[in-house]
């Protein structure tokens, strides 16, 4: 394998230059003579690409197109290995450091996942590639946080280790038909949200469906805290810049609001036993008028909701919103084709690939919005841009510690069941959080 790396390194500069030239001029034909030399060098080579997105998902569709472009321009063949999120999550630490390692792979962003791999040296730093291809300019602040990891694997600073292709965020899905039926207005601020929930409750309809067994209710809790918070609170919570005040207005508001809502019947007592899928199905079936969850549901909602009109809106009365860059492309340390891997990543950042990603229901990070014509896709991207314009992306509640996902869910279940009060919930959360974070600060 060594000979291949040496040979490839020799042509790296030439290859990379001719390709970037190719991408800036849309008509590949004119660059033919200079790019031709670069192309020839890669024919016969194979690039193993691994990801875990469905073939029909926005990412799957866009990346298939990227593979097509990549093969055409470099002459190399792509060996696509699709895997499952859970599979790779379990084995990446070993796999990326073995002879079976893919040359480039999608991986889950965040401290506990990609951060861990970066800290143990299982994925390669991409600082040089970032400079060569100018990826940093394409990623907006908030999106790029998850691409950088320091020596402890904490995101937000340090070297570049990954490239996000898409974004994701959490917002409110609502059932327009149900709002019309009961003559209730779609909420635009906190007061009208409470009023709408009260009105639904009076009609015997549980206004908000959620799941305390999986992520939705934890994200709702985080959103409520964010609605009272500013950026420095988020930095303290996610990046450990300073101590989080677990008796402060942010956390107190979140927990006590949820407690009130459960007491008032705005959130069903069944939520503690429901999965995200159950909650989503309740909304799709038209049993609940509102569902607070992420953009990853959007395509499914569009195709599965047949008998009512769905609307989407950002959570009323907040500047900060849970969300982040999506999963990232990483280059495993045992990659046999690191330079081809970088070229491939660059192809996925091209406007045409990014536009296709947006057109298919994803949230592109480097697309020209004018290229996207589909009305549903536009609605989602508009909402996302609104969040980005106010620099609102605040990541997810479970990121600070490797076990906080389960911890948060169990506390949420306690609130739904009435086993813990808001104050007790805050104390429990603080204990869970500090037991891990205290050493890192």
């Amino acid at each position: 394998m060594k000979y291949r790396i040496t040979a490839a390194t020799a042509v790296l500069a030439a290859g990379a230059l001719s390709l970037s030239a190719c991408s800036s001029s849309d008509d590949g034909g004119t660059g033919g003579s200079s790019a031709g030399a670069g192309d020839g060098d890669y024919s016969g080579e194979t690039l193993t690409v691994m990801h875990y997105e469905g073939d029909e998902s926005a990412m799957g569709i866009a990346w298939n197109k990227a593979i097509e472009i990549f093969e055409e321009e470099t002459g190399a063949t792509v060996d696509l290995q699709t895997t499952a999120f859970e599979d790779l999550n379990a084995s990446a630490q070993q796999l990326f450091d073995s002879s079976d390692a893919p040359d480039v792979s999608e991986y889950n962003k965040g401290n506990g996942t990609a951060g861990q791999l970066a800290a143990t040296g299982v994925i390669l730093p991409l600082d040089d590639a970032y400079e060569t291809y100018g990826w940093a300019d394409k990623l907006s602040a908030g999106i790029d946080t998850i691409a950088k990891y320091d020596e402890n694997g904490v995101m937000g600073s340090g070297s570049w280790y990954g490239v996000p292709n898409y974004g994701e965020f959490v917002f409110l899905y609502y059932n327009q038909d149900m709002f019309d039926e009961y003559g209730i207005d779609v909420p635009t601020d906190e007061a009208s949200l409470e009023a709408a929930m009260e009105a639904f409750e009076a009609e015997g309809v549980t206004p908000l469906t959620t799941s305390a067994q999986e992520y939705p209710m934890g994200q709702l809790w985080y959103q409520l805290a964010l609605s009272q918070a500013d950026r420095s609170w988020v930095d303290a919570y996610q990046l450990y810049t300073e101590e989080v005040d677990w008796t402060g207005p942010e956390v107190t508001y979140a927990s006590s609001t949820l407690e009130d809502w459960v007491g008032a019947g705005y959130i069903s007592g069944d939520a503690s036993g429901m999965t995200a899928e159950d909650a989503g199905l309740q909304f799709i079936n038209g049993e609940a008028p509102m569902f607070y969850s992420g953009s990853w549901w959007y395509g499914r909602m569009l195709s599965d909701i047949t008998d009512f009109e769905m609307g989407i809106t950002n959570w009323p009365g907040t500047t900060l919103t849970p969300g982040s860059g999506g999963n990232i492309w990483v280059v495993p340390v045992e990659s046999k084709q690191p330079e081809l891997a970088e070229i491939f990543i660059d192809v996925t950042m091209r406007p045409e690939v990014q536009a296709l990603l947006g057109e298919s229901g994803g949230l592109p990070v480097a697309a020209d919005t004018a290229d996207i014509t589909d009305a549903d896709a536009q609605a989602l991207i508009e909402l996302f841009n609104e969040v980005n314009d106010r620099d609102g992306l605040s990541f997810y509640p479970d990121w600070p510690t490797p076990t906080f996902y389960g911890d948060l869910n169990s506390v949420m279940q306690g609130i739904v069941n009435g086993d813990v009060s808001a104050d007790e919930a805050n104390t429990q959360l603080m204990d869970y959080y500090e037991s891990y974070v205290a050493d890192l600060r």
Partner: protein
Amino acid sequence: MTAVAQAPAPAPQSSGKDRRNKARPRTPAEWVMLILAILGALAIVFPMLLLLLNAFKSPQDYANSGPLDLPQALSFEGITTFWETQNFPRALWNSIFISTMVAIIAVVVSVLNSFAIGIGRVRGRTWIVLVFLMANLVPQEMLFDPLFRLYDDLGLLSNPWSVILTFVVIQSAFGTYLLSSLLGTFPKEILEAASVDGATRWRTLRSVIVPIVRPTLSVLMVFFFIWTWNEFLLPLAFLNTSDSLTVPLLLEQLNGERQTDTTTLIAGTLISIIPTIIFFLIFQRTLTRGITAGAVK
């Protein structure tokens, strides 16, 4: 399954039993047993029923109806998506190859081991058996990393032999344990008769012992096959390329990070249990015969 398994055993008496049943009404205890058996059978059939009901729904239909509702229209979307996106025949072949090899090799190894321990009565056999049993007691999570590195060095990753080697060791450890205690009680007279007839040890094993314990060996083989078929964690670690996957790993591929295409998963599960049912139908006799043979011993 238990009902089926027990039925052939008391075959000679069954005609007499029938007459007795006709002669007098069932006692309350018998009624209770009957109802319990029916409930048990229903509980076993229920998941299959769910699979059948939901495999033929379109994703929209599935989202808009309960899991127990009949499909609105027969949809083969899930099945076709599964068939088109996943290489099921390849995974089926991988599973059959791995499980068969493990079943055969592990039984041969078990017989050889237990011949030494059970018949040969080597010194410290209890401890040896205990050491063998350790292979079964060690949690697989512990084997994950060292074995992964070992097979990486040997160049056996994504190669079926990595899984075969691992499970031959694990299964034959159990087989050795079981067969050793069985052969420890093997009638001495038979062995003496064999040696009087001038049989070598090898001949005794091949022509005397193996034929006598054959029913037990077939049961072991079937069990090894099924256990290996259902293995998940270690194959997950060793088999990484898409054409080396086994059937359980292939089904896992259908689970998304946050979203799962449930109808495709259900359709895939339905397709993947068909070979298991065929396997059961073929080996059902072996299973029941083996169980009774073991019981008589």
